[in-house]
């Protein structure tokens, strides 16, 4: 407690980090310089400070040299502050009598002149030495973790994360935007490289999610607000009206067959618009939950105008044969409204997935212009036994002589559409080569067509992937290396007449080729969701420059975000296949379990408090606090801070006109001495 009056005995350590620092900063010079500074009892340079011997060195020195402050100059505090605080504590000192200097990320790695880099290291070290003198002993606060978890997005990532947690006995809220869970995987017929049936591996998991006692499944719902912080989030979820009571609907679908629309008439999103549905529908046979919904935009019982609250006006025009068919169950409810529900959770796993590149953005490939140009997702539905054609691959355009729909005799698949291109997306979408080969195999199996795959580079890094490529080669699929220039219907030979011609420079043969086909498939790449920006803000995450959600550390914290208690899994973090997605989802669930099972988190004690004697009662700090942590004592005319609510941003501190607010770890004195320290070089 009497640390103030105690003689300062600072221990300073500069880390070589192998060559990482030592190559650009003369560590011995820095150590010798710091030794001369007031208050420094000991100054050393050492090869690896974060290693066990490095940490032991600190502990030993604290004991033997009666150190009462420690400064380490090494990598970023975001990486190892925690490590060194631990060492300092193990040495018998309060862990906050420590300060860290970043001379790797902010110095040796970014500069090219050894002299300059060494000068900078000296200045930064000096600042820390001056700063640490003002450090105080602080206590870590423990905050309880609410044991429930929110999982956002019900693709394979969300499903796997939710199941893992639920099986561990934790309560999970799974919020999915669409009327059913399943995500992209639910649309596939087979999955590479094993070609196992997607539905067979996915649908059992989906129904388990639907019936698991620990999972509250909210489909057709979206998170609208998130308040709080790790351990204690309050989440608001909007549940959109489906005009069918999910608990009463048994999924018998009698209502659908009895709808006044005898034939399905409206474009069916799940089938990529290749099929049709009625106003009352179920997205696909294995949808979870097994509950129908009504599209008020086209249902005759709704008027086209809206109530003031935005809900559609219920009319009286339709015979409501659906209601009749539903009978006793009374599941259909035209008066249903969107509802808001609030839940409390301790952690959140974001699994919002991806969207595919809009093929229309590459006009040279003719999507939207030529009917027989398809996206890969459309073809996934076409080859799917439960798809719009029952698995028959028939062309959109062209009929056989007998008037029956035509099947393609030759098909071209163009890889990397929208990917690996400066004009669109720079990244490799990682799954397109593989799914293009999967589709080549399936299309050939379904039609016997001649298959041409146009690739830039073949990318098959995964277990069994190269083998799959070999299999395709053996099957006789033609692989042509080159970025396709265009798809055209302009025939130059009788053979090309009435077909699509793929024009490409075959870079292996060194010739420009024209390959006539009946069907073109565009392997569109993966992109961040259109609303990734809003979702990111909602959960206080960051995005990389490419728009994918940013992990806390690309190697060491791949499923964490910069917000404690918010984790990531699946394609929302970047393109990946199903095995990687599932692995990540398991990892994210494990991270959430760590929090829950520990039961509490330790909070950085960087909160603010008010020096009552100094406070003038001006109240200017009160509206600045986003957490309403600052209150006013009307009797004494003084402000005070509820430290349990304070998150330690320091905004109030920076704006107090009488300098009467103090932030632990970022106290004015500490920062002023740091400023002086960084400038005191010659």
């Amino acid at each position, binding site marked *: 407690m009497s640390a103030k009056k105690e003689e300062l005995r600072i221990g300073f350590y500069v880390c070589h980090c192998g060559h990482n620092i030592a190559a650009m900063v003369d560590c011995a010079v820095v150590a010798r310089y710091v030794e001369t500074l007031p208050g420094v009892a000991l100054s050393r340079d050492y090869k690896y400070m974060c290693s066990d011997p490095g940490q032991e060195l600190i502990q030993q020195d604290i004991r033997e040299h009666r150190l009462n402050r420690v400064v380490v100059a090494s990598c*970023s*505090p*975001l990486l190892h502050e925690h490590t060194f605080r631990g060492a300092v504590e193990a040495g018998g000192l309060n862990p906050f009598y420590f300060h860290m200097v*970043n001379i*790797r*990320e*902010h*110095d040796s*790695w*970014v*500069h*090219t*002149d050894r002299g*300059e*880099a060494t*000068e*900078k290291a000296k*200045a*930064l070290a000096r*600042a820390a030495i001056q700063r640490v003198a003002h450090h105080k002993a602080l206590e870590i606060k423990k905050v309880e973790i609410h044991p429930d978890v929110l999982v956002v997005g019900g693709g394979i990532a969300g499903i796997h994360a939710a199941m893992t947690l639920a099986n561990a006995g934790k309560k999970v809220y799974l919020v999915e935007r669409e009327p059913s869970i399943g995500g992209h995987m639910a649309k596939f017929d087979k999955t590479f490289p094993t070609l196992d049936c997607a539905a067979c591996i996915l649908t059992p998991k989906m129904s388990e999610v639907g019936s698991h006692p620990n999972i509250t499944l909210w489909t057709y719902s979206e998170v609208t607000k998130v308040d709080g912080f790790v351990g204690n989030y309050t989440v608001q979820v909007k549940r959109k009206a489906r005009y069918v009571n999910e608990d009463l609907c048994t999924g018998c679908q009698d209502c659908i067959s009895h709808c006044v629309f005898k034939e399905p008439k409206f474009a069916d999103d799940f089938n990529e618009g290749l099929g049709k549905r009625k106003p009352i529908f179920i997205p696909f046979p294995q949808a979870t939950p097994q509950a129908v919904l009504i599209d008020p935009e086209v249902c005759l019982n709704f008027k086209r105008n809206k109530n003031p609250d935005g809900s559609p006006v219920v009319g009286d025009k339709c015979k409501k044969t659906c209601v009749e068919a539903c009978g006793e169950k009374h599941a259909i409810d035209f008066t249903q409204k969107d509802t808001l529900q609030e839940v409390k959770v301790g952690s959140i796993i974001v699994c919002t997935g991806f969207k595919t590149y809009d093929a229309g953005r590459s006009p040279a490939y003719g999507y939207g212009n030529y009917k027989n140009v398809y996206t890969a997702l459309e073809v996934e539905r076409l080859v799917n036994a439960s798809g719009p054609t029952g698995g028959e691959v028939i062309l959109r355009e062209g009929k056989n002589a007998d008037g029956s729909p035509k099947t393609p005799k030759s098909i071209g698949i163009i890889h990397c559409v929208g990917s690996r291109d400066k004009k669109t997306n720079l990244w490799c979408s990682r799954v397109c080569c593989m799914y293009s080969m999967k589709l080549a195999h399936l299309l050939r199996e379904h039609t016997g067509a001649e298959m041409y795959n146009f690739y830039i580079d073949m990318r098959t890094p995964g277990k069994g992937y190269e083998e799959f490529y070999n299999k395709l080669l053996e099957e006789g699929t033609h692989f042509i290396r080159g970025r396709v220039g265009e798809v055209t219907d302009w025939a130059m030979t009788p053979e090309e007449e009435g077909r699509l011609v793929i024009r490409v420079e075959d870079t292996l043969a060194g010739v420009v080729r024209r390959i006539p086909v009946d069907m073109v498939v565009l392997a569109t790449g993966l992109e961040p969701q259109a609303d990734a920006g809003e979702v990111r*803000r909602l959960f*206080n995450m*960051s*995005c*990389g*420059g490419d728009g994918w959600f*940013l992990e806390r550390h690309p190697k060491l914290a791949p499923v964490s975000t*910069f*917000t404690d208690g918010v984790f990531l899994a699946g394609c929302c973090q970047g393109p990946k296949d199903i095995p990687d997605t599932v692995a990540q989802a398991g990892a994210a669930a494990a991270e959430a379990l760590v929090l829950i099972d520990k039961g509490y988190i330790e909070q950085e004690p*960087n909160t603010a408090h008010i020096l009552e004697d100094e406070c003038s009662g001006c109240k200017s700090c009160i509206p*600045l606090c*986003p957490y309403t942590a600052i209150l006013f004592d009307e009797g004494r005319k003084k402000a005070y801070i509820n430290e349990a609510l304070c*998150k*330690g*941003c*320091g*905004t109030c*501190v*920076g*704006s107090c006109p009488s300098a009467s607010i103090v*932030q632990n770890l*970022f106290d*004015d004195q500490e*920062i*002023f001495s*740091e*400023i*002086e320290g*960084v*400038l*005191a070089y*010659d």
Partner: protein
Amino acid sequence: MTKEWTPRIVAFFCNWCTYTAADLAGVSRLKYASNVRVIRLMCSGRVDPQFVLEALAKGADGVLIGGCHPGDCHYVEGNYKMLRRFELLKRLLADMGIEERRVRLEWISAAEGEKVKTVINEMTEQIKKLGPLGMPQKFETWDKEIEHLAVEVQARDAAQGPCPTRAAQLKPMEAVHA
């Protein structure tokens, strides 16, 4: 000072975006000028205008403040609060005759390592053009002049009694401001 002058810039970076971006610049091995010394704060909202003034007074030729993009602050809107203060600060600096361009506020997200590099290089170049601010030296000369003045006034007082007119006192002060 024998060495060639190069700018001294103090930077205040928020922990969540800009500091992390600077770490990323490091991890990506981007190369930039070594003139900036970064001080880490939890949020740009913590930047007290006094920090900036103190840095300039203690010898900085420029000050850079880095925070999260609007809407991205880890603490909701600390960066907006900073922005308001920053506008006032700039007026204050202008009144003090300090070029506006010596103090810069930038929103740099955790992913923008490139931007850290560009901003630091740009700012270094800009301040090179402006030349040294030299507040500590100015303070020294001002102190000396004031001291000198005090001695002069004392001498005059001793010779002819208390100061006769205000004008006589003001003259040397104007010289200070010129």
